[in-house]
C-alpha cells in the first residue's frame, strides 16, 4: 500500500483514534503524542500492508500498543490536563457519569467496551488486536457491562 493511501485511510479514522487513545491515556496531549508515534510507525510499515480494509484495525492495534508503552514508560502515572477539565465541563452530568464509570473500569475491560460498543469492531477483530481469544473478549464485555451497572446503579446497562 502506498503511504499516501495509508494516510488518507488513517485521517478518516481520526475520531476512532482519538477515542481509543483517550480510553487508555487521560491527557489530550499524551493522546496526540501517541497518535503521532503510531502514525509514523504505520507510515513506515505501510508498504507491507496489502489490504486497505485492514488499515483501521492495524492502526488501532499499533495505537493501543503505543499508548500502553507510554503508560509503562511513565510508570502508569496519569494526569488530567486543564483542557480535559474544560471539555468535561461542556458535557452534561449523565454523560460525565458514564464516562467516569467507564474510566473507573480496569483497562482490560475498558478497551474492549470502547472498541466494540463505540467503534463497532467485531469481537473477533478485537481479539486479534489485543492478542487474546474471542471468547475472552466477549467475557470482558460481559464483565464490563456488569461492573458499569454496579457503578452506575443502573438496571438497564
Amino acid at each position: 500500500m502506498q503511504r499516501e493511501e495509508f494516510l488518507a485511510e488513517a485521517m478518516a479514522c481520526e475520531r476512532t483514534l482519538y477515542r481509543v487513545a483517550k480510553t487508555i491515556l487521560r491527557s489530550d496531549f499524551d493522546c496526540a503524542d501517541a497518535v503521532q508515534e503510531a502514525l509514523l510507525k504505520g507510515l513506515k510499515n505501510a508498504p507491507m500492508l496489502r489490504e486497505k480494509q485492514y488499515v483501521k484495525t492495524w492502526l488501532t492495534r499499533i495505537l493501543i500498543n503505543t499508548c500502553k508503552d507510554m503508560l509503562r514508560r511513565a510508570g502508569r502515572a496519569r494526569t488530567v490536563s486543564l483542557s480535559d477539565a474544560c471539555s468535561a465541563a461542556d458535557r452534561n452530568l449523565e454523560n460525565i457519569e458514564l464516562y467516569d464509570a467507564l474510566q473507573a473500569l480496569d483497562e482490560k475491560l475498558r478497551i474492549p467496551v470502547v472498541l466494540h460498543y463505540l467503534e463497532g469492531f467485531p469481537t473477533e477483530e478485537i481479539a486479534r488486536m489485543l492478542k487474546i481469544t474471542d471468547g475472552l473478549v466477549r467475557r470482558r464485555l460481559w464483565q464490563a457491562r456488569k461492573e458499569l451497572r454496579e457503578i452506575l446503579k443502573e438496571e438497564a446497562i
Partner: protein
Amino acid sequence: MSDERLRGLLEKAFPDTPAVFHERMAQIAENEAARKKRVAGRVFGALRIALVCVVILFGCTGALALMNHFGVLDIYSILGMPPYYPLPEAEDLVQKDLADVQIGSLEWQVDEAVFDGRILRILFSVRDVNGTPVQTPAPEKLLRGGSAGEIMFRDLCQREQMNLKLIGNGEVLVDGRPCFIQYMEFLPGDDPCVVVGWVDCRMEGLDDDAGEIRRYLPEGYMVVEMPFGYDREKNETDPDSLAFVLKAGDAASRYAVPLPAPCTLDSGAVFAFEDLHFSPVQVYMDYTITVPPERTGDLPEDEFLLMDAAESRPEFQARPRLMNARDEVLGERREMHYGVHVGDDGSLVLSVHVEFTPSDRYTDTVYLVSDTWKVPIPLKQ
C-alpha cells in the same frame, strides 16, 4: 439496554476530538505531503486517491455480483480468503430454501445452510420487493468503515427501520441459546434490489447467568433464529427474527475424533488436545501447550508482556501444519487464534484453536507438526 443505546450514550459521553489532536494528525499529513514533493517532485492529489477508491469499489462490486450463483460452501475462496475446498461428501450436509419471510417491503430468504458439527454456515438474501435498487456506496462513505456490501445491507434495512441486531449483537440463536458469529459478510446481489449475506456461527456462546462460554452441539434438529429486531417506534427493539429448522443429524459426533492422551514435548511442555473434528467441510482442533512452573522462569503480570514471553518460546512460535504418514502436507490452515494465561499452579498455558481445509489423503494416523514438535493423531483406533 440495547447495544445501540449503549453506543449512543458512549458517543455522547466521550469528549469531542480536541484541537491539539486534530492539529497533530494534520501536521503529519502536511509533513508527508512535503516529504513526497521533495522526494519525487510529483504531486498526487486527493483526486488520485479518490479515483483509486472508485476503481477498487467498482472492481469489487462487479466481481462480487457473481456471488449469487454460488452456494454457501463456495463462498470463501471468492473473496480472496484462504483456499477452501470442501470434500465432495460435504454436499450431503447442505440444506436449501429454509425460510422465506417478508417484513414490510423486505423479503428475507435463507437460501442455504450447512452444519458440519462445529460451525453453522448460513447463506441468506434480502430483497426489496418494490424493486427499488440498493445504491452502491460513495467512496467517502466506504472510507468511514464497513465493506460496500455491509453499507448496502444497512441502507436496505433502513427502509424498514430494521435494528440489525444480527450485526450489533454478533450472535445467532440456536435452540434459544446465543451462539457467536465468527464471520459475517454482505455482498451486492446480481439483482440491484438484492444484498446477499452469509454468517459463520461458532456453536458456543456466553451464558449470561454464569458469565462463562458454553459450547452447544445439538443432534437431530435445531431451531435457528437470526435476530434482526424490527424498530417500529424509536430505538425500541421488538423481538423479530428469521427463524428456520435445520437438520443437525449426528454431525457433531460423527466427525469427532477420539482424543489421544496428552504427551510431553522435548522442551518439557505438555501437549493436550481438547477437541478434534474432521468433517468433510473443515478440520477443527483445540489444544493446549502447558509449560510447567519450573520451566517458565519469572512470568510478567502484564498481559501484553506475558504474550510476548509466551511467543518467544520455541514451542509457541511454531505455526502448525497437518501431515499424513507419507509426510505430505494436508489442506491449508484457514484460521488460527490463541490465548495465553497463567495456570493456578504457575504454569504457562497456551490455548490454540486452529482450522484446516479437509483432505482426501488422510492416513490411519495423521500428525500435527510444527518446527519443534510432531504430535500424532490416530484417525482409526
